[in-house]
């Protein structure tokens, strides 16, 4: 019994989050949805509590400690990193909903409930090496996301987005489940760590053995599972849903999908590839396949960033442009995975943290100006930079960071990624990524051009939203600050990656 309680203590943040979700639902029911802002504040307070608990957990865990509770849930800094990330993005999204001028103020309590539900899904999927729990978490996230995407029931685009998301999501979940069942059949285990480390003398069999005896089915299974994750993070060629869903969904939901959901997808992607191909001591025996997976990820990364950027070039809608830009950024993060090293994973984590600040900021800007102009078209921004200089300059900081120019966190993130791929003998990928940032400059700075380079005497006055503006400015300052003082994010990302306890790189045993 005591042991049970101790184990419960390890998942206290999850429990609190679940309790919060229930409370939100009941509160909404009791107040008959009369004042949804109250619920938003309640959510924020709850998230603050969860965040505080997670910080405590982070401290407690220490550099390389990890433990498993209920034989399923792995508590390590890697998971905690993503949980903090989720709490942070969720809080921002709640703020976005509150500041959304086009959103109703009442009868939207379930908005917050669904967001919290999605967060619970993320919490479990990022903290397990058990494919079953991972799948369940992923499905919980997906189901909540489908409903969120269609939250504006009267809006045709929103309904279309939800429908597309469901269809694509269902398909990819099916593909992934098929891959998981193949893996289970081949190894007799649904635990990634077991698959990666078992020596093959008895069931469950490790992948090492299976690669030697039947490489083709294993490869098929791995690729199928990867395809499922790739869909979640919208890697080409599984990105088709992204622009439509991002465009149709309410902007705060889009933000959630682009930031929290995408990061969670990368979390499982990293855990999966790491556990299977880079388990300490085993990596040398599967190095051949590890290299192939790395090369495959490198190719996907190059294609994803190039297609994302090229498609973004032609978008007239800022929301759609940001959707394609998020595809391109998925390509950048994949660089870190393609390196197939702990350093590469930590670079990917750093880039995700950078992405948090700059992308939240860019979506916040979009939301702000949707409220002003009632449109998502980039050209409606004309001359508005001079009307609202503070928010305009802040947006330029986000754009600079998204392009990857110093002195911003986006630049340092890209530098880290370059560093790791060059170290992994993927020099060409760094060149491709570099040229991609040149392409991306062109479309990101179309926004700056409309804001400041073009004049518009008839531009309407911008009704200020002091609180929201303040939040965006904080994000903007953070974007620059963490570009100059990278220490904190650097050690966070390194500690998180180290807590996976993987081999340094595919070759490290031979060196």
């Amino acid at each position, binding site marked *: 019994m005591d042991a049970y309680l101790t184990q419960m203590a390890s998942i206290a943040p999850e429990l609190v989050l679940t309790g919060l979700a229930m409370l939100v639902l009941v509160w909404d029911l009791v107040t008959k949805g009369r004042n949804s802002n109250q619920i938003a504040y309640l959510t924020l307070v709850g998230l603050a509590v969860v965040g505080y608990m997670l910080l405590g957990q982070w401290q407690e865990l220490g550099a390389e400690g990890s433990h498993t509770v209920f034989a399923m849930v792995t508590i390590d800094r890697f998971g905690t990193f993503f949980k903090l990330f989720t709490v942070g993005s969720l809080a921002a999204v709640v703020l976005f909903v509150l500041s959304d001028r086009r959103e109703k103020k009442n009868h939207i309590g379930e908005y917050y409930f669904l967001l919290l539900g999605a967060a619970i899904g993320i919490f479990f999927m990022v903290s397990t090496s058990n494919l079953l729990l991972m799948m369940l978490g992923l499905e919980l996230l997906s189901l909540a996301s489908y409903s969120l995407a269609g939250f504006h029931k009267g809006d045709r685009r929103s309904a279309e987005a939800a429908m597309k998301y469901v269809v694509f999501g269902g398909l990819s979940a099916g593909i992934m489940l098929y891959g998981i069942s193949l893996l289970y059949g081949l190894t007799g285990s649904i635990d990634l760590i077991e698959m990666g480390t078992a020596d093959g003398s008895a069931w469950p069999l490790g992948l090492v053995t299976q690669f030697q005896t039947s490489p083709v089915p294993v490869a098929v299974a791995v690729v199928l599972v990867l395809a499922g994750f790739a869909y979640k993070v919208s890697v080409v060629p599984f990105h088709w849903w992204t622009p439509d869903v991002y465009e149709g969904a309410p902007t705060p939901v889009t933000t959630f999908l682009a930031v929290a959901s995408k990061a969670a997808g990368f979390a499982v992607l990293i855990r999966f590839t790491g556990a299977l191909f880079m388990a300490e001591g085993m990596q040398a025996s599967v190095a051949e396949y590890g290299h192939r997976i790395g090369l495959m990820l490198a190719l996907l990364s190059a294609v994803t960033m190039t297609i994302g950027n090229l498609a973004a070039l032609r978008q007239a809608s800022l929301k759609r442009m940001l959707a394609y830009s998020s595809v391109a950024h998925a390509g950048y993060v994949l660089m870190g995975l393609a390196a197939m090293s702990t350093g590469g994973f930590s670079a990917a984590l750093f880039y995700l943290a950078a992405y948090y600040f700059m992308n939240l900021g860019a979506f916040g800007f979009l939301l702000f100006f949707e409220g002003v102009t009632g449109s998502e078209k980039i050209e409606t921004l004309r001359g508005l930079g001079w009307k609202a200089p503070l928010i305009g300059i802040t947006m330029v900081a986000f754009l600079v960071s998204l392009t990857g120019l110093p002195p911003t966190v986006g630049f340092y993130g890209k530098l880290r990624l370059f560093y790791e791929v060059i170290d*992994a*003998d993927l*020099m060409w990928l760094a060149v491709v990524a570099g040229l991609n940032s040149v392409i991306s400059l062109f479309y990101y700075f179309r926004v*700056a051009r409309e804001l*400041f*380079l073009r004049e518009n005497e008839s531009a309407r006055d911008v009704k200020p939203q002091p609180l929201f503006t303040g939040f965006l400015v904080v994000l903007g300052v953070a974007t620059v600050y963490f570009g100059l003082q990278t220490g904190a994010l*650097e050690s966070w990302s390194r500690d998180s990656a180290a807590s996976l306890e993987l081999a340094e790189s595919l070759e490290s045993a031979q060196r």
Partner: protein
Amino acid sequence: MQDHLLSWITFIPMIGMALILLVPKTSTGAVKTISLIATGIPLVLSTWLYFGLFDKASAEYQLEEKFEWIAALGVNYHVGVDGLSLALVFLTTLLLFIAVPASFGIQKSQKAYYALLLLLEVGILGVFVSLDYFLFYVFWEIMLLPMYFLIGIWGGPRREYAAIKFFLYTLAGSVLMLVALVALRLDSGTFSIPGMVALAQQGQLTGESLPGGGSLLGMQFTTWVFWFLFIGFAIKVPVFPFHTWLPDAHVQAPTPISVILAGILLKLGGYGMLRACFPIVPDAFNHFAYALGVLGVISIVYGAYVALGQTDFKRMVAYSSVSHMGYVLLGMAALTTWGMSGAALQMFNHGTSSAVLFLVVGVIYDRAHHRDLNGFGGLSQVMPRYWALTTLGFFAALGLPGLAGFISEAMTLVGAYDAPDPRFKVLVLISVLGIVITAAFLLWAMQRVFLGTLNEKYKNYGDINAREIFCQAPLLFLCVILGILPHYLLDWMGPSVEKLVGLLKMGAGG
């Protein structure tokens, strides 16, 4: 103050920028005053540095400051100057100080304009003083943003096109630089520029510690690193065939920005090659030196030839910059002390003479609101003082003996003629053609604008005013004085140049 002099010089404009942002938009007088002070103090300090603190007999970096910045990657805030960078720091502070009064005519959003101008100065000075490659790169990129907005907001009719073209070209170059830079960091374990140079001298910076020997698409490590760095800097210089952004940017930019662009930004390319490209991969440099010389000569002749065909005054001056910067590349490629000194000197002298030319164009444009060389005529009758100053500027640019341009061009050509590689003799012969064409287009322009019958439209024009003279005078003074007493630069640069030539030659195993 003295301990952190370089940091003060670099960041005082940033303090000025912060102050400007605090001033209300309507008090433009205060904005201008702050800008004058914030560019004036660095000028005073760099003058003091030049004549007072700097030990010109030494080839070492001086006034170094160093402390740890990003521990995880071993990045330091490391600044220092030697003879090469010192002259360019001085030039930068001077031109930025001149750019402020030259901008007084600008009416649109003055607060933002001067704030961006000061930010630009921080970026430029930062590049010249950085001794850490990461820091160098950060400053290098910081310049792009203010430049984009300065061209894009206050420029001519096609400013948007010119601004983004400038940005895209430069960024394309600098991402290649970044890849090479990261590879160098991985191989050398340091971001320090002197540290990398030292390793290169020991023949260690060859990519051997990188997976796959550091080769890219079959190219050897040093080869591709050299070309990536070189292209990054060559776009900035600009060297043919990377020059096409320059005429657009120059023509569309407002006069003071053209002055800065031609006077300093182009020098960043040449300086970057000397500081952070050639000595880091000396073997590749030696191997490709002749190719660089050829590119230099093409720039000289082609730039001059295209300038000859221009009817837009500013475009003509822009192409003349391509031509003049070609000498810099030719001189460096020759790998002789004379050639290298000539190149360094030419960078400074082009900084003053091209700045004068752009100011000259600005003066006439402010009055006539067009720049068509064929649309003027006989202006010497109504604007005699303007004519005199212009003549001096033109002669300095075309390399008349007694003026600064002559010394540097002559040194470059003599140095190149002396080059160990005999093929350079041919290049020198061809580049003499450039001198002739340069004289032709400048004199022809002079004839069309100032001589002949006076165009009736312009008979009421006032002569050049005191503010405009104030902007041009110090630059013309430098053109004259450095034509007579070039050792005021050469003595300072000498030791550093000789050390550099030594480094490059040793790299060749000679």
